[in-house]
């Protein structure tokens, strides 16, 4: 009986998990970002993102799990350009998750906001609820012309029409790292063992990825930087990505 009550009490805990097993987090230093879009290309290659073509791009139906947002500051001629790489913020209190009627998106024990393509029925509610607009819908079934289908990543499924998709923090790489760690005497994943494609390809090392629950990890140190802020923090979505704002002279 008492275990039943305890269990019920634990179910009443927001988010259910006492604490995340790992808490995958990213920091993006906007001072270092040059807007080169190497991350965009790397993501495209790693996650089998379709090339939608010029016409569909013009209809704003492109699929880019990470995009570089460009903002202008000041009036001409004193104009400054700033970049913000925008990808799924893996919010702890994600508005998109509650919206899905079929549990196609939920929060896993690593603090990731996951998307299950096979489960999705395409109501697109999650995309409406997402304040960062980082969810992308497959308006069509996209195909790869020969021999391009040879370069598809075998670790990532190819999505069909009518399915929502978004940045997964390269969950296939996290999976491999966790499996390796488990085989290796069930140890924890070490810092730097998981590197998402965008982080790996960033020439200026503007992005840092790691487990924020490990106080010694690089990402934990970066998060303490006083320049850190979260995008649209006032909406209480508790995003997992910390941006380091541009240092103004």
């Amino acid at each position, binding site marked *: 009986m008492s275990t039943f009550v305890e269990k*019920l009490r634990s*179910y*009443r*805990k*927001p*988010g*259910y*998990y006492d604490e995340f097993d790992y808490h995958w987090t990213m920091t993006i230093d906007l001072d270092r970002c040059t807007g080169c879009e190497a991350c965009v290309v790397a993501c495209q290659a790693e996650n089998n993102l379709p090339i939608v073509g010029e016409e569909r791009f013009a209809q704003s139906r492109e699929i880019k799990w990470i995009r570089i947002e460009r903002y202008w500051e000041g009036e001409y001629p004193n104009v400054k350009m700033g970049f913000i790489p925008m990808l799924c913020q893996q919010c*702890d*209190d*994600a*508005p*998109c*998750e*509650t919206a*899905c009627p079929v*549990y196609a*998106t*939920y*929060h896993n024990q690593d603090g990731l906001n996951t998307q299950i393509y096979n489960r999705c029925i395409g109501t697109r509610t999650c995309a409406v609820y997402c304040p960062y607009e980082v969810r992308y819908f497959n308006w069509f079934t996209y195909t790869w012309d020969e021999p391009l289908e040879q370069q598809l990543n075998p670790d990532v499924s190819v999505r069909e029409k009518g399915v929502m998709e978004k940045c997964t923090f390269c969950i296939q790489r996290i999976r491999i790292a966790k499996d390796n760690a488990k085989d290796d005497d069930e140890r924890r994943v070490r810092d730097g063992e998981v590197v998402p494609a965008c982080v790996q390809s960033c020439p200026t090392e503007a992005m840092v990825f790691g487990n924020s629950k490990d106080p010694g990890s690089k990402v934990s140190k970066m998060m303490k930087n006083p320049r850190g802020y979260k995008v649209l923090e006032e909406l209480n979505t*508790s995003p997992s990505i910390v941006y380091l704002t541009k240092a103004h002279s």
Partner: protein
Amino acid sequence: MAVIGAFAYEEDFLAAAENLKASGFDNISLLSPLPLEEAQEVLGLGKSPVRRFSLAGAILGGICGFAMAAGTALVFILPTGGRTIITLPPFLVITYEMTILFGVLFTLLGFHFVSGLPAWRDKPYLPSANIDHFVVVVEGAAGEQVARAEAIIRDAGADEIRHVEEDQ
């Protein structure tokens, strides 16, 4: 043996029904093309037991609704949006809808149960009872009862009187 009397006027029909009731005929049916409260009063129909079905259905639906929402959330624990697993506000909406759904379905069940419909056998009936005639049917009459019932109906001013053998 059933005796059927058809009336063109509501008041004659009601008078016949009252007289029959007073003479000790219990098994009478009063057919009318529209609901008549007076006819229901003659038969002494008060509050219908349908309301118990509605209440039972609504309560059952409420319990089932919450149990479904909470139970299915526990079968496969998938946290979403930082909410609790058993989240009260949304589950109460489900409870509310299920209360109404079961309430309606049980009321329907109650209707069928109390009214005895659908009727599986033919019963004494005149089609004019569904147009503009008020019909009294005395069922299960035997021997001298038939004549007595017929007399009461005729005295009240019936247009048409018939005798019908009932299916048993």
